[in-house]
């Protein structure tokens, strides 16, 4: 499975033309214990179909970040297996997995290695062996998407933390991977930043990419993700359509999460349905009077 000549072709293919090749993720009965002895995952199983948009919610320390670090091979399961497309993560290096799975870290300072924003965003595409012209186009497009075109020559640490987070987001977008994972993308962002990131998620979905996010921002989750997984103590407590899972206040409460604002309002008003959008909610209210 690790023939050297084969790998270059695979990587380049995944990074460019074949970016949208169907790439399901299959997590089978995964448990993971850190070297310190902390057991962070306990028998997690899930399947993510190509093109799905999945949000992972749950209390601090529930194992969310540990789980997604298994999807790009940064962590290898102590038990069970993770297969992305036809690749078992235990049989491939993190560098190779990066052609299939882009991962934006929770803390941008864990991710940034280069001295200019432009070089930082080009780092991943360069490692994937994107041809230069294509790489430049991908970098320019990614910087434009996050609104940092003018910052290309700036040192990443001359930016604010929320801006650095956008740099790391652009770095992963420029890799053009079929699967993109965000760890707390809206952390520290203001309303404009949250709207920008929501737009990025929507365009990735429109391109048929698989998008996973960890988030504590339940209203962001409700607005952009069709499926929600609720985690607690290293296990998936609930997994299903966001419109259903996010209304289960009792399940969410066990892992320190509350339903979105509009769901709580609809439930307090005992409406028949609990829409996830302002438009849906208003339609429900106006319809109620008729």
């Amino acid at each position, binding site marked *: 499975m690790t023939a050297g000549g084969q790998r270059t072709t695979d990587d380049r293919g995944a990074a460019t033309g074949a970016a949208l090749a169907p790439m399901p993720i299959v997590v089978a009965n995964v448990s993971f214990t*850190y070297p*310190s002895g*902390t057991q962070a995952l306990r028998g997690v199983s899930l399947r993510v179909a190509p093109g799905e948009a999945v949000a992972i919610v*749950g*209390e*601090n*320390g529930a194992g969310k*970040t540990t789980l997604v670090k298994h999807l790009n091979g940064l962590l290898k399961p102590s038990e069970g297996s993770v297969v992305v497309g036809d690749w078992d993560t235990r049989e491939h290096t993190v560098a190779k997995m990066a052609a299939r799975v882009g991962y934006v870290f*929770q*803390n941008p*300072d864990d991710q940034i290695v280069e001295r200019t924003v432009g070089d930082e965003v080009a780092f991943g595409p360069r490692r994937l062996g994107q041809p230069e012209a294509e790489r430049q186009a991908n970098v320019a497009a990614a910087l434009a998407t996050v609104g940092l075109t003018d910052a290309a020559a700036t040192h990443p640490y001359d930016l*604010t*933390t*929320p*801006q650095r987070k956008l740099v790391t987001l652009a770095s992963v977008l420029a890799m053009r991977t079929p699967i993109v994972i965000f760890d*707390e993308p809206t*952390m*520290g*962002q*203001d*309303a*404009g*930043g*949250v*709207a920008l990131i929501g737009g990025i998620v929507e365009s990735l979905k429109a391109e048929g990419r698989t998008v996973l996010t960890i988030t*504590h921002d*339940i*209203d962001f989750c409700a607005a952009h993700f069709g499926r929600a997984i609720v985690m607690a103590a290293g296990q998936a407590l609930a997994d299903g359509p966001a419109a259903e899972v996010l209304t289960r206040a009792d399940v969410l*409460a066990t*892992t*320190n*999460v*509350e339903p*979105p*604002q*509009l769901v*709580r*309002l609809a439930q*307090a*008003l005992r409406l028949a349905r609990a829409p996830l959008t*302002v*438009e849906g*909610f*208003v339609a429900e*209210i*106006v319809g109620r*009077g008729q």
Partner: protein
Amino acid sequence: MIRLGDVTYFYPRATTPALAGVTLEIPTGQFCAVIGANGAGKSTLCYTLAGFVPHFYRGKLSGGVEVAGVDVPASSLAQLAGHVGLVFANPFNQITGARFSVREEIAFGLENMGVPLEEMATRVEDILGFAGLRDLAERSPFALSGGQQQRLAIASVLVMRPPVIVLDEPTSQLDPIGSREVFAVLRDLAATDAATVVLAEQKLEWVAVFADRVIVLHEGRIVADGLPGDVLASADLAQYGLQPTRYTQAARAAQAAGFRADRDDLPVTLEEAVEFFR
């Protein structure tokens, strides 16, 4: 008590001020939230109250800054330590790196203040329980999740019981109920322990429920200052890069569709929204 008189501040080499003519008085025991888009000056205001501006960041500060009776620009950071505590936005910046466990990390500030051992032990154990960190007390501060580190950062400031507590987006990595709990604790510290609390935040739902007062910063200036219900329902919010709560958004959209169009008091909290839509 906090008093700012016509405060203007430039970071080193900056050509535009991060704070511009800020005059502000926050009475003892008030829980005051500061909101605004990124870059509006929220963090700079926090740093100014805690003395990191100008003592750490240098730059050019003019105007008067008085916190808990202390003239901030005229005092050293060490002199300020007992009067004002600052929780940084990134907990990684808060953790000393000089201690091997969560328990020792929390005790660090008390050790430096010379608190007697017995009292120190009691205060540390109390705050461990309150912050939900008791099961993690022996763990390395660096082996915590992002949200757990943020709880540790808050705990290590609160354990020192400073009369003025300044927090720069302290709940950005906390789970939703954990965030609400931090707001409730800050409200209680202000109400019952007469702590003066200044909180920079993006989570407007909990600002609406718990804060006594809301200040909006925009390009380094105060552009709104008042009760949460008034400031957060204001139609001006969007022009400062802020999004009202879903409750306010839904009420405004419902009014546009003809529902309760005569009401001019839009809800900002769940409780108010239930009343509005019932």
